């Protein structure tokens, strides 16, 4: 029976649709023209200009500081949560716990932003770097927990049982056997949290205070106030960072699959 070519054509169109805008943005970032559109020759001038914008570097520093703190926080909380969800899967508490972990993923970001803003205002917390870290960690925990939970479900627990049989306490077996073998999964989860924190705009926009500008916030104000070629250059740099991160996490995934052994 001959299969229709239609689905394959749609897939090709979809992939072009996905990458065309990104590709054009990258190409435009090397366009010497100030207004985009017509090609005025290849140039690094917009990248050079980026180096003379102290606000961007300050924002980059803030973004990194936030992303690193968020990654650590959400890795610890998310991994503990995944262990609880996995080990006590049948308990009623864990069913509620799972809902609590899962719901932030389906709630529109703007709702999380506004509700956190209201909570911070109601309690009287000063908006700034701290509030951004708290907000980012809140949605990153869910991603970390579900990623690690997925790994745990594929994990060969006979190895942990063997350690227990050989006299290891539950804690020792977790620390010396489970966690090291889970390391690639944890690293992948950490990269997810890191990227999400790095890229978040909506929630950050709501809970950021004066003096706590992140890169996405800066990009947004650049979009609002013109400066197109500079945004192209900055975006291309950020895309390069993201692509590198994905590449790394892909590598980790592969080694994780080898070690995990289904």
């Amino acid at each position, binding site marked *: 029976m001959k299969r229709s070519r239609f689905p394959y054509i749609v897939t090709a169109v979809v992939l072009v649709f996905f990458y065309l805008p990104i590709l054009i943005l990258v190409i*435009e970032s090397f366009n010497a023209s100030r207004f985009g559109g017509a090609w005025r020759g290849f140039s690094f001038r917009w990248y050079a200009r980026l180096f003379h914008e102290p606000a961007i570097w300050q924002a980059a520093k803030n973004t990194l500081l936030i992303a690193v703190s968020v990654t650590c926080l959400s890795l610890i909380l998310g991994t503990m949560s995944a262990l609880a969800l996995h080990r006590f899967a049948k308990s009623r508490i864990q069913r509620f716990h799972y809902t609590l972990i899962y719901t932030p993923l389906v709630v529109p970001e703007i709702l999380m932003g506004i509700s*956190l803003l209201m909570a911070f205002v109601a309690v009287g917390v000063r908006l700034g770097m701290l509030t951004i870290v708290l907000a980012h960690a809140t949605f990153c*925990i869910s991603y970390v927990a579900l990623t690690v939970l997925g790994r745990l479900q594929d994990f060969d627990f006979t190895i942990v049982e063997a350690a227990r049989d050989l006299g290891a306490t539950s804690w020792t077996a977790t620390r010396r056997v489970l966690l090291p073998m889970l390391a690639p999964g944890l690293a992948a989860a950490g990269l997810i949290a890191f990227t999400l924190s790095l890229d978040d705009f909506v929630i950050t926009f709501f809970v950021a205070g004066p003096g706590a500008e992140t890169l996405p916030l800066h990009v947004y104000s650049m979009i609002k106030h013109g400066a197109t070629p500079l945004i192209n250059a900055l975006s291309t740099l950020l895309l390069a960072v993201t692509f590198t991160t994905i590449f790394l996490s892909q590598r980790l995934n592969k080694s994780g699959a080898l070690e995990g052994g289904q």
Partner: protein
Amino acid sequence: MNAGRRARRLQEFLLTLPSFFWLSLFFLVPTVLVFILAFRPADPFGGIGQGWTTATIRSLADPQYLAIAWRTLWVSAVSTGLCLLLAVPTGYAVARASERRRNTILMLVIVPFWTSFLIRVFAWKSILHPEGFIKKALEFLGVVDPSTQLLYNLTAVILVTVYTSLPFAILPIYAAAEKFDYRLIEAARDLGARPFQAFRKVFLPGIRQGLITAVLVVFIPDLGSYIIPDIVGGPGNELLGNKIAQRVFVDRNLPLAGGLSIVLILAVLAPLLSVLVLQGKKGGTQPPPGNAAS
């Protein structure tokens, strides 16, 4: 044994407490707070006043807000429909491709998800711009008139919404299509079904779970869309998300922002609950929709 059980309880408690506490404090309580603060008056300094009032909630009946709520639903529904139209053939094609090719395509579908949302929306703004690539290309092909404005209309909002939501629709549909038993289609064809009939009566019901998940993970976030209408929509095409942000950043009226958020929460809950009820009726406890992101 009793001591062992108690140790287990303690272990569960210690492992669960941190994330439980954190999410209650920073997710559950703030969400409840939105409902409470919407009944507080705004104070002139952008904070929350004392006493209680229902004026905010009553002010939501303003036709301006009703029109915006309706537009939000409409844009989300059309975008979701378009996403499904593209995602079903793509999900099918990926599921039926050879393993190597499948991994490559899946990777290509997931990567845009990881790149900055803001940058992807901005990329569309610059190519739809009067001097942008798409506009120039369409002009060159004679499809559009030089005076046609591609940016700042609802079509642009829907186009970019589809662009950003499509990976979320493709992944669950692919996951369902991958598990589908394609011999069923052959059987239907052998029994005389035409290709489209087999597709509609056998394949689509077979990937039902994937379709439901796709609708939820596209429709719900689209309801809260804010950046897209803000950047490519222009002032006449605002959605609920823009109104919430304006109440926060322009006139600093947090209770009114809270009231509008309640409308959004109800709009989000409606499709979620209806799916839960429908699936409950079908019997069997389905696991919650798969996480499209991981």
